[in-house]
């Protein structure tokens, strides 16, 4: 029961791990992705990506700029132009 989450920038693969939930700052509002999410694609605005490693855990924040998110059967892929930190 885990969501495979990948965060990629042009320069490198920042994250590739299994997490519980990720909240993505979509262009038309934030959305959370859990395992088994329907296929979905959205552009994202600059903002914070919240990564919940386990249920109820304090989220980890990653600042991202520009890009889009894709949810497929294989998991969530966030392509960001720039990642802070």
């Amino acid at each position: 029961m885990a969501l495979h989450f990948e965060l990629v920038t042009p320069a490198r693969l920042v994250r590739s791990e299994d997490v519980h939930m990720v909240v993505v700052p979509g262009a038309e509002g934030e959305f959370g992705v859990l395992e088994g999410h329907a296929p979905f694609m959205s552009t994202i605005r600059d903002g914070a990506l919240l990564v919940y490693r386990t249920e109820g855990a304090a989220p980890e924040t990653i600042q991202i700029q520009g890009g889009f998110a894709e949810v497929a059967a294989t998991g969530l892929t966030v392509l960001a132009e720039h990642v802070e930190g």
Partner: protein
Amino acid sequence: MASLKELKGRINSVKSTQKITKAKQMVAAAKLRKAQTAAEAARPYAARLATVMGSLAAKITVSENSPKLLAGTGKDQVHLLVVANSDKGLCGAFNSNIVKAAMVKARALEAEGKTVLFYLVGRKGRAVVRRLYPKAVLAMFDTTDVREPGFAEAQKIANELVALYDEGKFDVAHLFYSRFQSALAQIPTEQQIIPVPAPKVAASSSDGAVVEYEPEEEAILAELLPRYLRTQLFGALLENQASEQGASMTAMDNATRNAGELIQKLTIQYNRSRQAAITTELIEIIAGAEAL
């Protein structure tokens, strides 16, 4: 016959040249490793973007309302050749190979009656293109002030290209760069970048599920296209860098070896003439002694 002193001077000068080429070779080898890692690190992003582009492009039928970057201007008259070169020399035929590939394409296009324009990245290709097509250079992008062209540069180039495209300065853009295969082989490559050629779709990627889009497909595509262009340029810049260092390493390795051979030859010549001089001197002394 060169005098001993002359020979010695030549040996020394070749030796110092060899030192330079050897240093440059080692620098290139170190940089090559770095450039290769960078090129590899950039691959996941490019690959993912290409899949997304492919699945999106398959869903949308190209019509007049499609973004111009995908559908084209409807004309095929003015071709822009984007030539990516390096800023520094000492890398063998690296730059001239790229320029040569671009020139072949330019001539072919001109033979078809098209107009050819150039957009030059990097310092090294400028002189040749300017000489052959003095009026065709549309713009130049300077990368001399940064150590390694990176994503920021790719972004600037892409923005400039899109701006020129929107102004209607050209209809089709081709990118010329050198694809890195190994330190010994770099392949000058041509790639169409505008209008964006739709990547081949892996048909099984969507596995039949209906994908939801937010905002709708057209809007996502409109945002995705410039991004895709940027990524392609970025990839080309990285490949180019790795190729440059590879070419440089090979060229400098050859130069170092040649210098070594030359030194050997000159040293033999030096020793022979030294011996000849000694022999002559001895004969003179002996002859002198005998005459007494």
